[in-house]
């Protein structure tokens, strides 16, 4: 199978050294981009590649870049979103710790395409050791003349810095990330204006995920059409999936877009642990609707197919659950996450996630009241589409889909209560 982003993973981190990276084809794309390509040509190739944002939203990358105004009065910034925090996802971690230069090279090329002289890598604070890896790699790139003034004699200047977050899922939301980078609490901003027009320090800003940026050197080297044909017509290229939960070989796997979910679970993931049966799978990180076993059988891992079964490809965090899993408990766990991570800015999300959890908590103790399942569904409905940013949707969708597909796991928490009430009345 074609390995693109993970093609240097077998070096086990040796590619962190710039010389090893260069021996394995590194920084050739940068030379090609600066010598042969205009910035507009790079954006065109990225558009042709059908590359879509790998952080979770799946927005077409080339289109995002083209929103940056050409005549902006303030400097344009490029920000790499390395705040990987979506439950079920650990792919950016490996992209950065095994092949940091791949992403850095992608960033320099992207910055050239965007005419940006400064970029920041916003990395979650917990990944402190990876921040060290990146800072060392950046220093090496400066020493070789790939960063700094007049890069490779092209006249293009670029500076790159690493900025640590400090434990806040919301900072993965691009406008909250920018607030955080400006030294404030991570509250999302009202859109529009979108960051591409008014972003960091009021300048046009492109925020791209680690994996998205790591793809860019490959598109420059081999062309947008080449990258696109690796995947499906509408979902170009390959994608890294983090397979976790009840599988024999959890890990990060790169497969072409359009790869069957069951093959990912059974081949790459080594099948369900203990030879048990599959009950459910969350295909794109905890924010997206859950799939039952039957849906897993017919879905392939691309934006369109996953959407056709009512879920989303998201960040590519594939969470596998075997037949012994109580989906009520899984959903309670996920709801706790969103309650904890709600930034508190808007009422539907702040109060809604707390209320949801309160109901989950009493149901957990088998003290659910008749109508509680409907209450959960209704509460989720009152958050969905009504919160300030997508975190509210992310909290609501797992609850509604779990109730829809695994109602019996929820009802059990109520029925028991009825028995208890009857017993108490006897």
């Amino acid at each position, binding site marked *: 199978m074609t390995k693109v982003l993970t093609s240097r993973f077998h070096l086990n981190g040796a590619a962190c050294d710039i010389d090893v990276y260069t021996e394995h084809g590194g920084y050739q794309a940068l030379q090609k981009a600066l010598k042969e390509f205009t910035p507009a040509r790079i954006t065109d190739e990225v558009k042709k590649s059908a590359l879509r944002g790998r952080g979770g939203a799946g927005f077409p990358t080339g289109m995002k870049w083209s929103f940056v105004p050409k005549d902006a009065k303030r400097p344009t910034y490029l920000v790499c979103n390395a705040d*990987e*925090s*979506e*439950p*079920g*996802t*650990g792919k*950016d*971690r490996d992209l950065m710790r095994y092949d940091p230069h791949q992403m850095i090279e992608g960033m320099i090329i992207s910055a050239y395409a965007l005419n940006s002289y400064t970029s*920041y890598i916003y990395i*979650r*604070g*917990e*990944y*402190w*050791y990876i921040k060290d890896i990146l800072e060392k790699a950046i220093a090496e790139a400066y020493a070789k003349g790939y960063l700094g003034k007049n890069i490779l004699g092209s006249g293009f200047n670029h500076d790159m*810095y690493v*900025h*640590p*977050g*400090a*434990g*806040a*899922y919301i900072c993965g939301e691009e406008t909250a990330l920018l607030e*955080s*980078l*400006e*030294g*404030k*609490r*991570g509250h999302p901003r009202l859109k529009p204006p979108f960051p591409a027009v008014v972003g960091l*320090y009021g300048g046009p800003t492109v925020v791209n995920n680690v994996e998205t940026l790591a793809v860019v050197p490959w598109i420059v080297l081999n062309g947008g059409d080449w990258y696109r044909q690796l995947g499906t017509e509408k979902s170009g290229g390959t994608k890294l999936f*983090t*397979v*976790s*939960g*009840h599988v024999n070989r*959890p*890990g*990060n796997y790169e497969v072409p877009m359009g790869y069957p979910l069951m093959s990912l679970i059974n081949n790459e993931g080594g099948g369900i642990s203990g030879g048990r049966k599959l009950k459910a799978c*969350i295909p794109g990180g*905890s924010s997206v609707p859950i799939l039952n076993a039957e849906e897993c059988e017919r879905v392939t891992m691309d934006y369109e197919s996953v959407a056709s079964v009512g879920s989303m490809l998201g960040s590519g*965090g594939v*969470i596998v*659950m075997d037949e012994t*899993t109580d989906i009520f408990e*899984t959903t309670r*766990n*996920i709801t*706790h*996450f969103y309650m*904890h*991570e709600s*930034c508190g800015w808007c009422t539907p999300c702040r109060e809604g996630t707390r209320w949801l959890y309160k109901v989950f908590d009493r149901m957990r103790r088998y003290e659910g009241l008749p109508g509680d399942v409907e209450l959960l569904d209704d509460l989720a409905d009152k958050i969905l589409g009504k919160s300030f940013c997508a975190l509210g949707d992310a909290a609501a969708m797992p609850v509604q889909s779990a109730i829809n597909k695994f109602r019996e796991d929820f009802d059990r928490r109520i029925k028991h209560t009825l028995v208890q009430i009857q017993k108490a009345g006897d």
Partner: protein
Amino acid sequence: MYSEANERKLDKIITYYPVKRSAILPALYIAQEEHGYVTDDDIKYLAERLDMRVNEVEEVVTFYTMYSRKPIGKYKLQVCRTVSCWLLGAEQITEHIEHKLGCEVGETTKDGKFTLVEVECLGYCDLAPCLQVNFDYHEKVTVESVDKLIDNLKTK
């Protein structure tokens, strides 16, 4: 206020940004490294250094979970409680540590050595269950491996 090396580090970090205030998150890590937690004096000092108001620093400190406004143990044991780790037994890991240290989640042992907390997703889902001790990751932990780890830290 801080060691010469850390003052120099802070000076350097401030140059990364067009606005000084942007350095507050990295600066707070320096404060924590020096004092174990973010003190009132840290807040006043960093407000002055970064052209911020004291309340602006305070509101940042209290928003992000990786900063503490109270003293914590030498080793902060952070058990990931989120879905992938939970599916593979994170709750049992937490219960075991509670039992072993005789302290509950959110508490610090009497000798001031360990603070036990549950945290949300650490990004080690494929290496679950995961425990982070200060900044060090421990992957695929078991009751036995956690036992060994804590016994080892006790002697340090």
